[in-house]
């Protein structure tokens, strides 16, 4: 009973606090916070991509392209651009895809400390109440396929796309949090490898 009574109060208090803090931060501070977030995530993201964003597969470029396309479709991604000759595939879907809700939630929790550290200088204590929610965001993935000596080099990049147009003068939230990137890349490459193995035999 005590718990049941306390929960609405806590929720109300939390919402109120958020509103209060949101009101405390000026537009300029919020813009700076988003810029800082993009910049900080970008550094981590670039490191991650350098390590895990490109892999070599012993297959033809064509087979890799098809397998990746099928793999991404299996993960719920919608093809937006594809050019096999160019070796480029772009897919998108509403976040949290290609992750599940659970995968998003657990990975984003790991990113919260970094997120809060990045924005705290600009929004102060409000940083402690910020969550990394997928609402209103699309995940856009670019895959490229390049011929390599021993097969095909497959590279992935990931970005966020806000569904609503950004307010004038406001930065866009481009970069995905590092743990989300890691989990996403691993999931995509794992699905891709399965698809490659299941692909038509020559």
């Amino acid at each position, binding site marked *: 009973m005590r718990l049941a009574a306390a929960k609405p109060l806590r929720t109300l208090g939390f919402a109120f606090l958020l509103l209060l803090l949101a009101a405390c931060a000026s537009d300029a501070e919020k813009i700076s916070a988003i810029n800082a977030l993009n910049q900080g995530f970008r550094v981590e993201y670039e490191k991650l991509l350098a390590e895990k964003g490109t892999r070599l597969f012993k297959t033809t470029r064509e087979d890799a392209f*098809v397998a990746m396309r099928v793999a991404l479709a299996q993960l719920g991604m*919608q093809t937006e*651009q594809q050019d096999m000759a*160019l070796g*480029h595939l772009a897919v998108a879907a509403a976040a949290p895809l290609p992750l599940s809700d659970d995968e998003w939630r657990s990975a984003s929790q790991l990113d919260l400390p970094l997120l809060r550290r990045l924005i705290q200088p600009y929004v102060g204590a409000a940083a402690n109440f910020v969550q990394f929610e997928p609402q209103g965001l699309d995940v856009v993935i670019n895959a*490229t396929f390049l011929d390599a000596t021993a097969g095909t080099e497959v590279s992935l*990049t990931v*970005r966020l796309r806000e569904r609503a147009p950004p307010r004038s003068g406001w930065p866009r939230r481009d970069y995905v949090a590092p743990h989300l990137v890691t989990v996403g890349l691993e999931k995509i490459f794992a699905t891709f490898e399965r698809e490659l193995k299941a692909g*038509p035999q*020559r």
Partner: protein
Amino acid sequence: MTEVDFPDALPAGSRLHWYVLERVLGQGGFGITYLAHDTNLDRPVAIKEYLPAEIARRRSDASAWPHSDTLAKRYAWGLERFLLEARTLARFDHPNIVRVLSVFEANNTAYMVMRFEEGEDLATQLERRGTLPQRQLTDCLLPILDGLELVHGAGFIHRDIKPENIYVRRDGTPVLLDFGSARQSFGSAKTLTILVAPGYAPLEQYYGDASTQGPWTDIYGLGATCYRAIAGRAPLDAVARAKGVLGSVRETLAPATEVGRGRYDEAFLAAVDRSLQLSETDRPQTIADWRRDLLADAPRGRVSAEAPASFAAPPPTQPPRVEPAPSSTHESAGRSEGPRSRWRAGALVGGLLSVGVALWAFGRFGGSASNVSVLPSASSVATTALPRIEASPSLSALTSTSTSMSAPPVAATSAAFAATSAPPTAAEVAKTAVAAAPAAARPTKPAEVTTSPTSARNPQVAGRVTKPPAQVLEAAAPAMSSTRAETGSASAAAPTPSIAVTAAVPSPSPVQVDTTGARSARDQAIDAGEAALRRGDANAAAQMLAPLAAAGASRAQALLARAQETRPAAQRSDFEAYVWYGIAARNGHAGAQAQRERVGAKLQPAEIRQADQIIERWKPRPEAVPATPGDRTAP
């Protein structure tokens, strides 16, 4: 989508990811095809659901399950084949092969999302019309051959070609559907499930194992489809024919050369009969072989290898078509007839005179400053339009006569562009641009096209003679933002200067394009793309320009980049815009580098690295666009 008609269908309004089902388009042995709305891209799509009625049914929660445990393996195998079909189709991006947009699994089954094609299948047309004249039959058949050749090239066979699986779009272009039986033809020993369409399936599909099937299997299906269009009925089933041959029944197939005599070219009918040989080894073994047979008798300009727009609604008295420059795969020998020979001789004399004038001008005004009107592609097989000589500041024109081609008095009309309900592809635009080029710009001789067999069969020679230095041509091309008069539909209506070819002219210095003079068909196609862009139809522009850009035209590349930037939100791609600006810049397009840098500011550094690698390794694909006379963009 009524429950009575399709009791197993998902109800209208059902949502699968971001697709909302609207109605059932059809139901077959494999499952159900729906018309659906893609709410992301706001466009109709066709969605094929795997639900083979024989072995599975739908449960109340919308999921599909096999009737029994014993059928589960078969269901799973079929599901795998279904997914394979999607993968197969995803390999091909060809206007005459059905386009798969996506595939996904849900409801314990799978869904293939395809472009929604409006029109009707060939079977329905044949039902209504009985038979088809040769022109319309070849207009439908030849593009399908092109698409199928691509499929075969990748090691797949369709295995279920019949009129029901050939769809004729509203603009008359055909598209091959239903690769449900497609499989890789080479290297797999897996026994095939028998999937046959009586009358259209060859004997090896009944009795043979996988190793006996190949491109000739599809050629049989196509031949049977032709037979249906010639005779008004499908050929006898292959099994019955085999029995007839053995004498156990009295039925045998009346050859196409008999049932179509007088209405079709002999060679065409013979080719159809050859495709229907019971023994697979007696049939043409490749599409290219069969195409050669089919067109052996066809005078160019009479039977078009690429003439999609006329199939749906041919005009009562259609003038002879201007043939696009013959591609290596659509060659016909081109018989020489009396008047044609005389015309060719005249053309030869005219051409030589022109060359003389040109050489004189060349010497007089200096090679580096000379402006040459036209430039055919390597694959245009030394085809020459023989037009009036176009005046240019320093040089009149250069002509060649190894092959001659004159245009018919086709009245130009913007309707040629407006007629299609869907945005035309670049290839279609290119073809239409040729067909619709203004009469004023064409000679008034009757339509006729002759092909020099030697040059036609030796494209290397032709290429050597006619191919201009691409970089130089591109450098001389008008800038993307040129103030050229609006083209596209307008270009077809405006008198366009005629085309001449540099074929036999030695070119010690770089050849330059007369930017105020000749407009090649491909230029006009690029112009049409630019016009679409100007009127705000970036999607259509992108469709038109993509193959031209892929073939190496830097102006098309820069325009395509701009189209990619300005497409509707979900299709917009700064990445591809960056790539195409980069490729255009690499090919010397003025201004593209600045655009590349501007777009690059919107990309992540990692995306720029990806894109730069693509740009660095990009190579033109001349085959991306069918060769057209006066082509000047092929690298």
